[in-house]
Each structure stands twice: as C-alpha cells, then as structure tokens.
C-alpha cells in the first residue's frame, strides 16, 4: 500500500515537472506582432540617442499632423540664394531677351508642359519664396508643402516614415531627409546606372 502511494507521488511529480519544463520553451505570445503590441504598451524610452550623429547638420523641426520631426535646413544650401540678388527686375522683363540667359544647368523634366512650368512652383513676383497653386507663399525650407499638393500619397508615407530616408540613426530624435534632398525638383526621377558592385566570381563563370 505504501509502495503504491509512493508510486503515485512519483507520477504526479513527474507530471508537474514535465509541465514546468515544457512551459519554458513556449513564449507567452501567439506571435511577434502580439508581443510587440503588448510589450510596447509599457515602453519607457531608450537611453541611446541619435543626437550625436546629427551634429554639424543644421535642422529645423516640423510638425505635420501627428508627426513631429527634424528635416535639414535648405536655404543655406542653395548656391544662388537669395534669388533677388540677381532677380532685381520682374521676370517678364528679364525674359525679353535683353539679358544673358541664366540657369543653363536647369532643364525642367517634371510632369508635362501642360501641368508644370517654372511659375507653377516659383513666384514670379517674389523669387525668394515658392508659391502654392492658390498663390500662397511657401518658404524654401518647407518646400515639401509644394510637393504634397500633387504627391499626397507620398506625403502621407513620408510623414509616417515609409517614404524617404532617415538621417542619424534609428534612435530618437527622428530626423529625415526632405523631398529635395533626394529628388532634384526639376528632374525628380532616379536615373538607371551600374550597380555599386557585382560578383566578379560570377562574372568569371559567365565568360
């Protein structure tokens, strides 16, 4: 009789032990998405920061919708800013052909001529600022407001972080390139080119 109860005890102990040891291997979440959602609720921030990696880049803070982040300051990087240093006379007079032609390097390759010309974005009366479709002033530092008049989907993605490129690191504060840091506004598409590298080993095999 004693022997029998001892046997049962061993069985029970083994059963409990098995449960405990199996438990260790299973995550308490069904999948990684559940885990992210649950554990993200107790997020307290991180000790690392991107600030060191942003030093030396002049940034401005913008708030668009729910998103607040940094973008590079633009005006100091435009070679011939302020524009009014040359554009002392209204555009109409300059275009009469009395003056030397300027801006040789700029060729507009952005939408078609029905949609866009210079003054779709530039203000003929105030060359130092950009101009919205309805005639409002847009600062060169916030030129994304010009682009988002047409490119609304890209703008949403950019605000959220799905479009565009991060500056610094993943750690806060968030800093991102603005539209014109990657796209030439006069010719916004990316050119095709040779890849940065290819496998020479494979090239040898091909020959």
């Amino acid at each position: 009789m004693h022997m029998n109860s001892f046997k049962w005890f061993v069985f029970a102990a083994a059963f409990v032990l098995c449960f405990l040891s199996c438990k260790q291997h299973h995550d308490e979440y069904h999948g990684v998405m559940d885990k992210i959602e649950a554990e993200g609720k107790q997020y307290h921030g991180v000790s690392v920061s991107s600030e060191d990696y942003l030093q030396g880049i002049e940034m401005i803070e913008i708030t668009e919708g729910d998103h607040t982040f940094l973008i590079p300051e633009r005006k100091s990087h435009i070679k011939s800013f302020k524009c009014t240093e040359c554009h002392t006379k209204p555009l109409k007079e300059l275009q009469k052909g009395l003056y030397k032609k300027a801006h040789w390097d700029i060729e507009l390759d952005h939408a078609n001529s029905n949609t866009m010309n210079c003054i779709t974005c530039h203000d003929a009366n105030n060359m130092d600022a950009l101009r919205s479709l309805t005639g409002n002033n847009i600062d060169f530092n916030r030129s994304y407001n010009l682009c988002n008049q047409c490119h609304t989907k890209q703008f949403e993605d950019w605000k959220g972080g799905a479009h565009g490129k991060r500056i610094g690191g993943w750690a806060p504060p968030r800093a991102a390139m603005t539209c014109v840091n990657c796209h030439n506004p006069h010719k916004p598409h990316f050119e095709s080119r040779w890849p940065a590298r290819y496998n020479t080993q494979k090239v040898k095999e091909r020959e």
Partner: protein
Amino acid sequence: MSSKSKKWFSLNLGKKDKHSENGCGCGKTSGGCGSHDLTIGEETKKDGFDQVFDVKMSRRTAFKQLTASLAIGAGAISTSCSMISGDETKEQAQIDWEEQFKGNYKLMTDEEKKATVDRLVRSYQLRTGKTLNMSSKNAEPDVLFGYAFNISKCQGYMDCVTACVEENNQDRNSQMQYIRIHEMKDGKGFNFNEADDNYYHEVPAEGHFYMGTQCFHCDNPPCVEVCPVQATWREDDGLVVVDYDWCVGCRYCMAACPYDGRRFNWSKPEVPEAEVNKNQHYLGNRMRKKGVMEKCTFCVQRSRAGKNPACVEACPTGARIFGNLLDPNSTIRWVLENKKVFRLKEDLGTEPKFWYFMD
C-alpha cells in the same frame, strides 16, 4: 577580476606582481601543469574550464581537446621558461591560454565579457601593432529591433551590399555577402528559382523588380534550436547572434535556416589591413576565423549605439527602414500599422522581424 571568481585556470605567465595559487611555475611542483587541483568554486552554472572538460566525450574528442590544449599549454610553457622570449610573447601566450579556456559568451557576466574583449583588443595590438575599439555592449531594455523593406523602391543599385561588406569585415577572397539582392521578373511573383542574384547590367532593368534578403532575425529562430553547442542565440533586443569563438562549424544552423541567411567561412577570412573596420563588437564585425558561421547582425556595433545598420544608411532609395518595434512612435511601427506588410514563409512560424511592403 579576482582569481577566485575566474572560471578558467590561469597561468599568469611572467606576471610576478600578481601571485595566484593556481599559477604554475612549470615543472617546479611535482606532476606538471595539468595536475593542479582546480578550485572552481560553487557556481550554479558551468562555465570556462568546466564547460570544456566536465562533459562526457568520446575518446576521439577527448584526444582532440587534449592535443589542442597541450599545444597551447606547451607553447605557453616554452615561452614562459624561455630566457629569450620577451614580455610581449609571454603576454600573448597568456592571452592565448585564457582565450582557449574562456566560456560561452552567452553565459559570461559583464566583467567576463569585458575581460575577453580586452584580451582580444590587446591580442590584436600585439600582433599588428594597431589598436581597435571593441564593444561588449549588452541589449538595451525596451528595444526590439525590426526591419522593413520597400519592394517598390529598391532599384538594385547594390550600395547596401558594398556598405555591408566594408562595415562587417567580410572575407574579400570568397566575396562573402550577407545581403542578396534578387532581380525578379515582373508578373512572376516571388520566384526565387528564376531570380537573378548576380545580374551584370545597368539597373533597374526594364520589366524587373528587386528585393533583398538577409538574416531576418526571427523571433523563433530555427537556427538557434539546432545548434549543438549553443554558439548562436537570440539576444533580448531580438538580434540573433553567433559567438565565433564557441562555434564548432557544424553548419546545422545553415541547413536549418529557411531563408539562406547564414554564411560559412570555408577559408581564412582576409581583409586588407587598411580596410579593416576598427569599430567592432564581440558579437558583430570582429574578425572571424576559418570554419565558423557568421551572418547579418543588423550591425550590432552600430544598432546598439543608436545608429542604423550600414545597409540602411547606404541605401540611396530609402527602401530600407530600421527601428525599435517596442516604440509606438517609431517609423517601423508606422509602417507595420499603415502599410500592407508581409513576411517570407510566414507559415513556418519562424516569426521573422523583417517585413516587406510596397508603396
């Protein structure tokens, strides 16, 4: 670290200032170096010397272990007894000895991690006369790394691959690359069998799209399960890492990975001295040796310092997004919540932390 808490047997060659009970004066006591009583202490887990010797092993492996250890021991003794060899040689022998008997990085305390990193840095200094910076920074709380890849943006420029090779000190001879960029035909879907991974023409090619694969840092990594020596594991911030000094090179993990994420060093990895990235992490881009596994670590040396991995920083199209999955305001979380994301072979239950999406 005091000699008491040390989990391996110390030689303390030529270090007269630090007297240790275990220190062997080579030949001065009877029985020779191997016969000392080792006081390991009352550890709850096995480490260092114990991990190596206190295991059942076959005659063959026992001989192998013994030969390797004897070779190092003999080297150490001959240098310590030699009148000619200098302090530096002795120091190198000491480092080699301690490195041989160190434990698994996963089980090390922070001091032990720092000690092995210091030894590796010193060893590099002794060998090359150049100094490097190696970190043993642990995972940060409240961080889980995740990655998103925009298929509609990638143009196949391969800047990511170049940056990765340079950042992570990958072998130049075998052209090891952690990242593969697959050129796929439009309309064929993800057909890896027909994808061209070694395209040799201007990109993007008409009628093709590009997508990249690398280690996906699965949350339920099959490679970790199969490792017979636990040389690879998942860190708390989600990175799946390898201890190159604990790996035995069986390549089980390579076979277990459903994503072709792991690479093996078939030959001694070689990087020209001038091109070595000196900003290193023990679990990341420090120099590997022949016969061990390696793979993408999301650039642990960069990501744990708050930076983006080299591939993210190098991508000219912004197709690569990296961040902290636990931060509800991070851009990676916005992508997961607002774009139509998917992962490769989701049905396997590996839970990769690498999502694909389109504009």
